[in-house]
């Protein structure tokens, strides 16, 4: 059954807000930062107007924003926040706490570069810095995917076999503030998909005089961390299933949920990237094909858990990867590139990899730049 949609026009941030409105969280706790602000402004409006029956906590910092969600999550209710850049850094301790504490919080990160110098523009440096934190990270390519992913995120996170917080990522401004088409299902269908959060992962209660998050020795420590690793493994399957189920219900899928392939199955060069660069790269692929060049594309949608198998399988068939990173681990290289190289080595795939850093600090990456990079990579084919 594919449900009815309304053709709507909205910014990426509005798309996130709609998904939240429809998912009906009980507690929202947030703090403003450009370019995330319009998400929470919209939500505070929904709450104040009575459209969304939720508690909205206007906190004094991001550390507290996420902490508020954590309190709500411990109490067994659906909860939401969103942030960006410095805000994400300021809540760092609680980001790790929610991940390692298995709290099913949904928190979009509107990607923005990190200071200093001050800049409000997009790159992926902020969310990438939290790739160790036990969060599911899904990088979206456009407004539609933002809506869809936020909706999916609640279900993925709240699944008891997963119980991990989710971080849907959207490029600042180019998604968050850009108006584009979103095919919007109605509130009821959307909520039906997400479902009530009725069997919470965890729930503090006077009837249960238990201690949550107390002292642990090494043995128990390893046990809970191993369980977290396994949950990440399970999350891969869950994301794939969710993508499929979402497709059946709403008529849209994003590759297999983990990666998305564009163009031919095999090509001389494969462009690999995430977020809006990956979307725009599709125009680059078309352009290159028009010029008779053999180029396809792989978009990494889910960075955590990292889709090793899927990436390796596709890479194996292809000849060379041009990995475009929009963030960098200073003192080494782009994070996406590093991890792709790692899984290729691990799986004895000798497809060569070329790395490019593009779009740092809000640098625009129009498709002609991608086309040029691809041509260079084709020339320097090793």
């Amino acid at each position, binding site marked *: 059954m594919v449900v009815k949609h309304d*053709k*709507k*026009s909205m*910014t990426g941030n509005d798309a996130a807000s709609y998904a939240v409105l429809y998912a009906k969280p009980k507690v929202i706790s947030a703090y403003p930062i*450009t*370019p995330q602000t319009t998400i929470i402004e919209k939500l505070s409006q929904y709450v104040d107007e009575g459209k969304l029956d939720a508690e909205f906590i206007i906190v004094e910092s991001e550390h507290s924003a996420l902490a508020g969600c954590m309190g709500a999550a411990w109490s067994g209710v659906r909860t939401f926040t969103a942030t960006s850049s410095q805000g994400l850094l300021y809540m760092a301790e609680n980001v790790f706490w929610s991940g390692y504490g298995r709290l099913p919080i949904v928190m979009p990160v509107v990607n923005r570069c990190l200071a200093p110098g001050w800049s*409000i*523009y997009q790159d992926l440096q902020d969310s990438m810095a939290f790739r160790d934190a036990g969060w599911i990270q899904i990088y979206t390519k*456009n407004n539609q995917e933002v809506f869809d992913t936020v909706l999916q995120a609640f279900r993925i996170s709240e699944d008891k076999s997963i119980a991990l917080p989710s971080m849907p990522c959207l*490029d600042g*401004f*180019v*998604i968050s*503030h*850009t*108006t*584009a*088409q979103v095919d919007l299902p109605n509130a009821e269908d959307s909520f039906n998909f997400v479902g009530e959060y009725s069997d919470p992962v965890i729930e503090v209660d006077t009837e249960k005089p238990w201690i949550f998050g107390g002292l642990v020795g090494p043995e128990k420590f390893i046990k809970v961390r191993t369980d977290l690793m396994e949950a990440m493994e399970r999350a891969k399957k869950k994301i794939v299933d969710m993508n499929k189920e979402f497709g059946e219900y709403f008529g849209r899928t994003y590759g297999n949920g983990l990666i998305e392939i564009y163009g031919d199955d095999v090509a001389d060069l494969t462009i690999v990237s995430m977020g*809006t660069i990956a*979307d*725009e790269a*599709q*125009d680059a692929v078309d352009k290159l094909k028009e010029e008779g060049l053999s180029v396809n594309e792989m978009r990494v949608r889910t960075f955590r858990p990292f889709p090793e198998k899927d990436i390796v399988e596709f890479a194996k068939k292809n000849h060379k990867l041009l990995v475009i990173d929009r963030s960098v681990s200073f003192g080494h290289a782009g994070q996406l590139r590093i991890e792709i190289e790692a899984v290729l080595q691990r799986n004895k795939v000798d497809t060569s990899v070329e790395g490019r850093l593009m779009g740092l600090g809000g640098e*625009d*990456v*129009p*498709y002609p730049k991608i086309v040029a990079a691809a041509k260079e990579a084709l020339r320097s084919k090793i």
Partner: protein
Amino acid sequence: MIEVIQISRGGSGGVTGAKILAEAAIMFEEGLYAQAIPKYGSERRGAMVQAYVRFDNKPIRIHSPVYEANHALILDLSLLDRIDLNSVDKEGVIIINSKKIPENLKGSGRKVAYVDATGISQELGLVLSGFTLVNMTMLGAFVKATDIVSIDNLVKAIISFWGEKRAPKNVEAAKRAYEETKVVIA
């Protein structure tokens, strides 16, 4: 794909204008896709602000600002000399808020659409904290000059955005501009 660059002043509603223009295409034109991109920076009220609108008959995967526009939509006459018209397609229209053909376009051979949007908006009382809001008015002019979206659909978009209560003045402004805009080769 048709690409539009819009120039306005911070506080004059330019960003909203671009948004509504995209909405008119997306929500009411059959088979048309669109996108509105505001350019964010540290611009404050009164300072020059750019926004971009794209139209296409297939989903748009470009996320970059518009570098070479088909048309230019200029909400304030004094901003005309602040943009490089070479980046605007020779075949496109320059739509401008002006009572007459601006001096420095005269003889340029370019297609110019002009309308006294400030006059219309002021007559209709579209003024906020000293700023005349010409954004909806200029959309009327844009529609007249380009024909990408119809005036009916623009009106629908304006109503959908502003709500029944606040829409009338804005609709009126767009419609009047639609009628009063003159398109000429300068």
